[in-house]
Structure formats: C-alpha cells, structure tokens
C-alpha cells in the first residue's frame, strides 16, 4: 500500500523531470536568472572595499529564491496544458500524491540549479567553501525544501489567476520570510567559519517551518486543487 503510494509520487515526479529534460524550459530560465543575479551583484559591489562575507549569503539566497519563483511559476502551467491537471485528478490517486509528486519535481529542479549556481558564486565572490561544504549543503537543502513545500502549494493556487507571474511572489514571499531569514543567517555563519553549534538554532527554526509548511500544504492541497 505504502509502496504503491510512493511509486505514484515517483511517477508524477519522473514525468515532470522527463518533460523538462526534453524542453529545458524551467531549468534554463532558472539557471540563467540566478547567474544574472550573481553577475549583477558582483559588478555593482566593489569587493575590494566590501567584505564579500557581509553580503554573499544575501546575494546567494536572492539568486535562489527569485530563480526558484520562475520554476514554480512554470510548474503547474505544464499541468494546465491540455487540462492535464484534470486528467490527473480523474485518476484514482489521493490528492496528496499529486502534491508530493509536483513538490519533489520542483525540489529536484531547484537543487540542480543551486548545485550549478554555488560554484559560480564561489568563483565570482572569491569565497572558500571547501571545509564548509557539508554544513552549506544541509542549510541549502532545508531552506530549499521549505521554499518549495509552500511554493508548490501557491503555484497550484495561482495557476488559474491571470497575473500569476506577479501574484505568486506576492503570495509566497511573505509566507516564506522566516525560512529565508533563517537560511540567510545560517549561510552567513557557515561562510564566516562559525562553529556548527552556532547555526543549530537557525537550523532548528528552518526544520520547524519545513514541518509546519509540509503539514499545512498536505492538508490544504486537496481543497485548493478541487475548487
């Protein structure tokens, strides 16, 4: 029973990844946007006068979240094409399967984008992450998980709105502020070489919000998608 539930989640996620591998619409726009953000900040700030560690964490998360919005905006648009979302809702699967499948697909897209963005960020801002890579991966993963968890819900909500490109960030950013603040703070502490113990409280905050968002999204997705 549980295997069946997860295999359907996997099928939805894989369907999204397969479609994306063919078109590269989501990934290319996300990656190019994040690259542009990094380059613009790099050129606009004189890194000889400003300590990169004072601004780097903010720049990194601006790149992640804004390019993430581009991906989330496209996520349910594919389902709208030929009214596939209705086809999906007609299948005998629990609505939460659709939510988790879409959410994991978005998570994969964002993590791949981030995996390519981080090395570019390291080069442009001349920051060493060699001995901090493990902590950085944990923070980026947990921050992205929270962002995508609630972002997928709002993406489903805004797909039928005309001005969805504008509405999604307006709806989403106020809700994910706690996670973004905690992720920026903990990334800053990691990059400045603070011991792991100092970032634990921020990590706990991210984990708590991840859980809250996951539970709320799981419970409310059915109502959002049905009406």
């Amino acid at each position, binding site marked *: 029973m549980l295997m*069946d539930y997860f*295999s*359907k989640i996997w*099928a939805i996620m894989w*369907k999204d990844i*397969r*479609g994306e591998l*063919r*078109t590269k619409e989501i990934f290319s726009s996300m990656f190019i946007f994040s690259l542009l953000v990094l380059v613009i900040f790099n050129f606009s700030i004189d890194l000889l006068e400003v300590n990169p560690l004072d601004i780097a964490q903010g720049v990194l998360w601006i790149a992640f979240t804004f390019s993430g919005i581009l991906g989330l905006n496209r996520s349910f648009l*594919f389902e709208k*094409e*030929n*009214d*596939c979302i*209705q*086809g*999906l*809702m*007609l*299948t*005998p*699967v*629990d609505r939460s399967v659709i939510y988790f499948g879409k959410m994991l697909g978005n998570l994969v897209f964002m993590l791949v984008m981030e995996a390519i963005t981080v090395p570019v960020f390291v080069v442009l801002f001349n920051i060493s992450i060699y001995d901090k890579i493990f902590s950085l991966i944990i923070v980026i993963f947990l921050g992205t998980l929270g962002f995508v968890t609630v972002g997928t819900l709002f993406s489903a909500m805004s797909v039928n709105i005309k001005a969805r490109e504008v509405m999604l960030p307006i709806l989403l950013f106020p809700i994910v502020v706690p996670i973004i603040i905690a992720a920026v703070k903990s990334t800053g502490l990691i990059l400045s070489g603070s011991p792991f113990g100092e970032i634990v409280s921020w990590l706990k905050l991210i984990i708590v919000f991840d859980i809250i968002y996951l539970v709320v999204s799981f419970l409310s997705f059915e109502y959002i998608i*049905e*009406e």
Partner: protein
Amino acid sequence: MDYVIDCEKISKSYGNISALRDINLKLEKGSFLAIFGPNGAGKTTLLKILSHLIKPTSGTVKINGILLHDEDGEIRKNIGVVSHNSFLYNNLTSYENLEFYGKMYNIPDLKNRIAEVIDEVGLTARMHDPVRTFSRGMMQRLSIARVLMPDPSIIYLDEPYTGLDQHAAMKLRDILKNLKKGDRTIIMITHNIERGLEVCTHVAIQVMGRIAYFEKIENVDRDKFESKYFNTVGKEHY
C-alpha cells in the same frame, strides 16, 4: 432495480449562479446516453460531478451503488473521461503518456496493455512520437486509448467531436461504436445531434441546469428530434 448511475436531486451552485438544479438521472448497465443542450446548460458540470471531480451543492450521486459522498476516490478507477481537452502531456510521447496514466491506475502488464489500446485506436506507428506533433484527431484517439487502458465500466465523453475534421470525426465515430460493445455505460455530451443519435440508447436535453427531456431512443422520432430540441431549448432558454 440496480442502476449504474443514480442521481437524485443534484444541484450545484457557484455563488448566486445555479449550474445544476434538481437533476434526477438513472442509467442501467450498458446504456449510452447522449445529452444535448446549449452552452452554459450545465452539461460539463454534471459530468464533473458524476466523475467525482467536484461535489454537488445538494443531492446524492451513486455510482455502481456506491454513494460518492462517502467515497475516497477509488471509484474513479471505474470511470473514464474523454473531453475536448486531451489531458495529454505535449512533451511526452504517446507511449510515455499512457505509461504515466497506467501507473496512476496500477495497471498490470502495462507494456502489453499500452500496445493493445494504442493498436485499438490505430496509433501504433506513432507510439514513440511526442504528442505535440499530433493532429487534433490523433490526440483525441490517444485520449480514448488513455481512457480504455484501465477498462472502465463507465465512460463520459464531453464533446469529443470538437475541432475534428470530417475524416477524424468518422474515425472517432467508429471507435465510439466499439466502445458501446459490452456492458459499458456511456454518457456523451455533444452539440452534434446526428452523431449523438446514431450511437445512443437514451437521449436527454439539458437546459439551464435542468434535464428538460429524457427518452429512450426507440421512442424518439429521429426526423423530428431536431425541431423537438429547438422547441425545448427555445422554450426554456430564450
């Protein structure tokens, strides 16, 4: 008598707008109901309720004797819906689309089942082509293959002829005639009176959210049905 579809007094409102008003509908196994009606009559809303996609504001719906209100969605495996939208992903091939939907329905021996249904609709040669390269008629045939895969006992067709040329419409008509074989219960919404009458066992006219006319096909004078339709629609609608 046991009915496959049994609706009692179903109504659906969106705010102040009533899409359906006190609809009663009973269909036996093997029936093929053609529903005609003008735009905005609530035909698609009725199918959405019958396919457990939306809930009625009031009234009860039983499918195979099971009350939809108490059901968690498992009943949907017995229901197939062909709409004017194909529900197919343009970036995936026909095979990948069917494979995806097959997994959602837990269809055993999926590879062979896909080959069977794709052959049934005459698209074997295009099995590995992306759906975005398909014509409207091919998409509609693939959509029928998608519906046939789990072998549902109930099929809803929502204006399946929309946008099809004459040749594609003829092909679709042949496929629909095949669907009729066996014990399947089918409801088709169409604006095309001629095509509807040639396949159905029951006829209904829906106007302003009500079933204004319901009759067995043997009691319908086909030559006079068109004027009957316009009289019914005109009387209630204008």
